[in-house]
């Protein structure tokens, strides 16, 4: 009974290295095969990190697994897609006053052991957003040739459009501070959000850094991107990238 409140007990305030209130956002759509392990890994990597699972109307037992893990779960009333689900997570972070939000896929391809590396630039206030990058010497991540081509293409286009230098623009392993949380809670791209949200963040003047991380193959389930549909995705992403440059954006977050 009392345990519930002791877990929530506040740490002594006024300590020098105050830890920023951080939230891990785990979007999950039919991830029953990997979700339990992902959550356990986050817990063991960083026990103080709060976790919210955004269940994008899964049809398998994702909801039960998330509920049993004792984390906060937000159930969307119908499937809204990864962009809408992520945005829900950022809205949760905004509404609950979190200072840092980290997004970690529910499919297990992001290694929770890399969390400190990802969080470091944010907590030192060197960046507003840090992106976990697959290619930076760490590990032996092998992308399919098609995906690799897509990544190179996107990073080239993004670099040309907003002078944003990112080697792995399709990475969904990211951390943002309060500025990023407020931006993404209000405005987040829909279908293939990673690439476009980087451009969005850059256009709003967020400081972005890349952090080399180890990534794994998916623990279970299938990637939402298959080779045949890949070309179609590339065209859609390119289109949205170009549009994002000409788009009118709502007023910036509290404009520093």
């Amino acid at each position: 009974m009392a345990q519930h409140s002791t877990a929530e007990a506040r740490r002594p305030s006024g300590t020098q290295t105050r830890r920023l209130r951080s939230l891990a956002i785990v979007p999950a759509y039919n991830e029953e095969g990997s979700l339990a392990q992902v959550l356990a890994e986050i817990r063991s990597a960083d026990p103080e990190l709060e976790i919210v699972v955004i269940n994008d109307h899964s049809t398998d037992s994702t909801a039960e697994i998330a509920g049993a893990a004792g984390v906060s779960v937000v159930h969307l009333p119908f499937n809204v897609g990864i962009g809408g689900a992520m945005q829900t997570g950022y809205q949760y972070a905004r509404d609950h006053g979190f200072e840092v939000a980290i997004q970690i896929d529910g499919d297990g391809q992001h290694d929770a052991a890399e969390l400190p590396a990802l969080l470091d630039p944010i907590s030192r206030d060197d960046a507003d957003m840090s992106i976990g990058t697959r290619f930076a010497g760490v590990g032996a991540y092998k992308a399919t040739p098609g995906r690799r081509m897509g990544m190179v293409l996107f990073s080239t286009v993004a670099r040309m459009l907003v002078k944003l230098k990112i080697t792995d623009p399709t990475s969904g392993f990211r951390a943002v501070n309060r500025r990023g949380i407020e931006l993404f809670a209000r405005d987040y791209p829909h279908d293939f959000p990673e690439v476009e949200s980087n451009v969005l963040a850059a256009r709003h003047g967020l400081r972005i850094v890349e952090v080399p991380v180890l990534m794994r193959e998916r623990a279970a389930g299938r990637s939402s991107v298959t080779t045949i549909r890949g070309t179609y995705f590339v065209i859609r992403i390119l289109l949205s990238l170009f549009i994002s440059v000409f788009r009118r954006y709502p007023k910036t977050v509290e404009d520093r």
Partner: protein
Amino acid sequence: MIPLRVSIAAAIAAGLLLLVIVELIRSRRLQERYALLWLLTGAVLLFFALWRGALMKVSDLVGIQYPPSALFVMAAFFILLVLLHYSTVISELAAKNLALAQRLALLENRLREEALEQEPER
């Protein structure tokens, strides 16, 4: 020259269209803001069906040999406009729908967590 029968048929069709639109608005099955484009469509078609000289002039101006074709072109153009208008309406609805779903999910979550927090006190 425009065959008289074409003009009569077009006028009747445009008049019927206008009547149906007005009736839909009157019975509140169509909101005015969505009906505006339709009303304009019907009015323009009726205008050119009745005033045959204007249709002749317009088709002459853009180089259409057979003036009744100009009526078709106008009708097609307005249909495109209406469809485009629908796309914007659907986009807006989809955005609102998403926002509602997100708000609902977050409120549900908050409600559940607050209920959980209060339980141990009992």
